[in-house]
């Protein structure tokens, strides 16, 4: 199972929106994944517990300090599956082909 994390400044709103949209997408694609959301301050803890993909606003990417092996996707339009969809699929195809929907 792929662990996906949505991150925003304070974990109250923006990351929840990303989480909703991305979860819809992952379910539709039949990708075996779990989805969490949190604030920037909490992100380090989550990432150290084996998160595979992190999504956040493009503006926050440089604040994230993701450890090696965590795939970070920075977004402009946080609600656009057209934007995040292909990026997620690239990471999944390349690194987690076993989690693809059958």
């Amino acid at each position, binding site marked *: 199972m792929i662990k996906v994390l949505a991150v*925003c*400044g*304070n*974990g*109250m*709103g*923006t990351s*929840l*929106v990303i989480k*909703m*949209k991305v979860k819809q997408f992952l379910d539709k694609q039949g990708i075996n994944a779990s989805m969490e*959301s949190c604030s*920037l301050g909490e992100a380090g803890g989550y990432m150290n517990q084996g998160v595979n993909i992190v999504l956040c*606003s*493009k*503006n*926050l990417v440089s*604040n994230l300090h993701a450890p090696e092996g965590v795939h970070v996707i920075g977004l*402009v*339009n*946080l*609600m*656009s599956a057209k934007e995040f969809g292909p990026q997620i699929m690239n990471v999944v195809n390349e690194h987690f082909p076993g989690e693809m929907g059958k």
Partner: protein
Amino acid sequence: MNLQEHVLSRRAARFQVDACDWKEAVKAGTDILVEAGTITEKYYHEILAGVEELGPYFIMAPGMAMPHGRPEGGVLENSFAIVTLKEPVNFGDPDNDPIDILITLAAVDAKTQNEEAIIQVVTLLDDEKAMADLRKATCIEDLEKIFNELEEMI
């Protein structure tokens, strides 16, 4: 918590608001909630401080923002306010500016009760017809109609 109920029962919406910059646009939303008694004046300053630190972190998509701060920043009750602007303003997010629809969110925590309403926010912002209608709306009855049409689709 339900977006539609919250906004309609408190009449927490202003349409075609005149705002000369993004701060006035944010204030239009927080003013509604201060009047409704669900946040304190502090929340507006909390949001401004957040932007100072992180940039305009609550821009959702082209034209759309969801201003919000942390619960300890003056939130008394879960609530929402909807603001549309007569003229869009820039928030300093070149990819998504200018913004003319704001859904102000005040939440006492980030847990499940909040998530239900977030789904509704996303559903609303995601619907092109609803957004076009919201940009034209001038009164709470227009908004009620938009919500009703959305609900029929879900």
